[in-house]
């Protein structure tokens, strides 16, 4: 192995908190060779980001770092802010997960790139601008000379991530730290960004430390991988070796975490629960003094959907395709036109108050397990709230008993119900959200990306839980997701949506094996590249 350019030895990171010390990174050692891509994988809380951030001196004020991190022989741990700042942004640069918030909305992208260049190199404005344009061209931003004066909000998520990469590479660093740079992006764009990074690495020869939770991505871009768990490195080595022949049970568990199996089909003669015909959700855009309608955003444009008892219909699409809007329209949470009926009862003519009693039949589980639970209520109160509304005659003790039951049903300890949501992990919170929906014994549950914010192994457990609950209670699911692997494991039928319309619809297995529409093919191809098994 050639001389490593970045070398971490026995790195420890500790945080002082109210609840005592947290040992976030425990004696981690790893090294990255020049021009090499090292993947650091692990689930949330494994310390994979903290290892890299701490070694670059980017750590919260209550943290402390010991050990050694050397960049081409220079020790970084214990270095002051000023010398670190001459290294960060010049020799080592970073890109982050969230392209929407990593750029300053008040400055053009050109200004931001130029300031990074001039911060580290003594060159004139005009020259820096030329370099910035070159950097944008390098990341394949079309018409870079003009786009350089665009503001971040004028660019899409994928383009912003490209700008972030351009900015990170503008000073030709030795090492690029990429912290989940594609997690927030759609699959097709994710594939493009990964391709771009690989190309740029060939061109410029920098080393990449790629932090991710997605094993598909690791397989695709990295030669060597470090697997982390609870702050410790459990396994490292060449990707083919580690993934082909995992030695540590945790690595095996991660590799095995892809949701497997298919849903048992619902009986063919089961009754129709939800029948939606030609649903349209249009948002008028009003401008001017008289607020005249100047344009209409067609979020959902003529979608029909039938959901039978015991059936799961998966709705797939990229961001902006209108899949979540459709789910909310069916729940009557946003105004829609067309016709929606639940068990032969038309929903659209009902007003808010008349809709309320029906709400216990149709429940909703949200994507974000952090935002969907009220932070100032205990878990027990959150779960039992539906009962307060729909069964007001129940005593407090009875409600509490039912909440405990519901927690047991989602495999959480019922004794935890006096705690508050922020004390739970993402997966546990999603179980709480599911318990809140299930306590009312609904007929239909609309699941809006219920697993997207979770780690793979937890996704798998949630998928299994949802399938069990469906079996047990004869539930019908409307499963909204961008993740084809999970949709396949959950649904009987799949609807593919694009720009508010359904482009393809069909039984799960045939649709994934042989998609007819070009868009579906693209979606599946992109997903396959990062590890979807299409058999």
């Amino acid at each position, binding site marked *: 192995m050639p001389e490593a350019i970045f070398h971490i030895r026995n790195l420890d990171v500790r945080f002082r908190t*109210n609840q005592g010390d947290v040992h976030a990174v425990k004696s981690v050692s790893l090294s990255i060779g020049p021009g090499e891509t090292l993947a650091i994988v692990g689930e949330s809380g494994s310390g994979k980001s903290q290892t890299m951030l701490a070694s670059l001196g980017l750590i919260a004020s209550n943290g402390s770092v010991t050990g050694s991190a050397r960049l081409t022989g220079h020790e970084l741990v214990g270095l002051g802010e000023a010398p670190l700042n001459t290294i960060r942004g010049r020799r080592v640069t970073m890109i982050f997960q969230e392209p929407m918030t990593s750029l300053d909305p008040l400055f053009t992208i050109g200004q931001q790139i130029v300031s990074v260049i001039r911060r580290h190199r003594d060159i004139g404005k005009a020259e820096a601008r030329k370099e910035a344009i070159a950097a944008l061209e390098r990341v394949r931003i079309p018409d870079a000379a003009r786009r350089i004066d665009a503001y971040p909000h004028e660019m899409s998520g994928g383009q912003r991530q490209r700008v972030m990469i351009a900015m990170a590479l503008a000073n030709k660093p030795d090492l690029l730290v990429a912290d989940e740079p594609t997690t927030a992006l759609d699959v097709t764009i994710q594939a493009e960004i990964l391709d771009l990074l690989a190309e740029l690495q060939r061109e410029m020869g920098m080393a990449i430390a790629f932090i991710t939770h997605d094993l598909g991505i690791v397989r695709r871009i990295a030669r060597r991988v470090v697997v982390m768990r609870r702050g410790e490195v459990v396994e490292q080595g060449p990707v083919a070796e580690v993934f082909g022949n995992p030695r540590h049970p945790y690595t095996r568990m991660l590799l095995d975490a892809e949701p497997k199996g298919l849903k048992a089909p619902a009986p063919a003669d089961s009754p129709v629960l939800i029948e939606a015909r030609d649903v349209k959700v249009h948002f008028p855009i009003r401008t001017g003094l008289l607020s005249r309608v100047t344009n209409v955003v067609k979020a959902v444009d003529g979608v029909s959907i039938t959901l039978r008892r015991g059936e799961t219909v998966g709705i797939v699409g990229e961001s902006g395709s209108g899949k979540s809007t459709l789910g909310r329209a069916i729940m009557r949470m946003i105004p829609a036109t067309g016709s929606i009926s639940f068990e032969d009862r038309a929903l659209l003519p009902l007003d808010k108050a008349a809709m309320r009693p029906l*709400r*216990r039949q149709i*429940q*909703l589980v949200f994507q974000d397990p952090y935002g969907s639970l*009220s*932070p*100032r209520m*205990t878990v027990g*109160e959150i779960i039992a709230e539906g009962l307060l509304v729909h069964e007001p005659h129940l005593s407090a003790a009875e409600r509490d008993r039912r909440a405990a039951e519901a927690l047991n049903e989602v495999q959480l300890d019922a004794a935890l119900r006096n705690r508050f949501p922020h004390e739970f992990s993402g997966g546990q919170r999603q179980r709480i959200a599911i318990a809140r929906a299930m306590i009312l014994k609904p007929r239909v549950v609309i699941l809006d990306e219920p697993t997207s914010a979770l780690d793979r192994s937890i996704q798998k457990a949630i998928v299994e839980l949802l399938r069990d609950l469906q079996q047990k209670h004869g539930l019908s699911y409307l499963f909204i997701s961008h993740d084809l692997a999970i949709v396949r494991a959950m649904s009987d039928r799949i609807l593919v949506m694009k720009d508010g319309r359904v482009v393809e619809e069909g039984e799960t297995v045939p649709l994934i094996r042989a998609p007819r529409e070009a868009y579906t093919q693209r979606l599946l191809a992109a997903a396959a590249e990062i590890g979807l098994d299409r058999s």
Partner: protein
Amino acid sequence: MTEPSATVMQGRSLWADARDRLRRNRAAMTSLIVLGIITLACLLGPALTGHPYDRVYPDYVKVAASVTAHPTPDKIVPAIERVASRLRAKAEDIRVEGDIARLKLVAPRAIDERSLAFFERSDLFHAAKVLAREDEGKVMRIEVPIQRLHFWFGTDGNGRDLFTRTLIAGRVSLAIGLLATFVAILIGVTYGAVAGYVGGRTDTLMMRAVDVLYSLPFIFFVIMLVVFFGRNFVLMFLAVGAVEWLDMARIVRGQTLSLKRREFVQAADALGVGPGGILARHIIPNTLGPVVVYTTLLVPKVILLESFLSFLGLGVQEPMTSWGVLISDGARNIQGASYLLIFPAIFLTTTLFCLNFIGDGLRDALDPRDR
């Protein structure tokens, strides 16, 4: 683990976290303690100082602040001579021993024993006792106990103890601050939450009404209310509270607008919870952080407002007093008796400082970025 499992299972609410963070904030904790001491002093102090707040000591007008007891030794003899001359007698052979003065009264005619009450009427002495009469009552040996009084902060222009009055004033100022703030919160939170949550035209109408109230000249408005409600200060500060809720309504409305888009509110909506339930269980508890902070800043604002109104002569009425009244009184006497200004001002500014520090501390403690 010997700890009972019940306590282990009890959750740590966000409030508990905030409390711990506040405990670590030294400035805020010191302020809390100081404010507690001031409050306690204002509540209990007036009963312990030994002076009723409206008691006038004509002999001690504008006595400077001091820790020594009054009357001072050099004042005793002239005071005795003054009383004696009222009795149409001459004081001779005056000897002061501790708290008792012995003397001989000499008069051209017999001295009426009842006229010895002049001693008691003075603020310096208790009732005089006759030891012996000589020369058919024209000469009288008497013993006069000296009344020892403490005026820690001095006395005002009417000869009232400033210490007692400062504490009494604190009661009034703090009560007014809390009362008006309570009214402001009650109206502001409800109004803002309803406007923000209902939204649409209702929101526009409600907030335009707030804007109209904002545009009224504030002092003019308060003066009008004072005239309208008469000089009853409880009513008056309910009225001040009824003006001060405008900021609170705006803050709470802004919070509500962002909260209403949060998923947990949508989740409650999807669950079928009505607007009342959503407001009471989801919106209002989550706005309380900023509300608590704003409250601690509003209390000093109201106290200052009261001071200002009292300064104008529209506030509390004599003999009742408030810090504002005392300070305005002190300001008039700043040249001759600056202590009249200094002591109430120390109390007021300390309280305001404390409340502001507590507000700052609470804002830091409740800041969601730290979670």
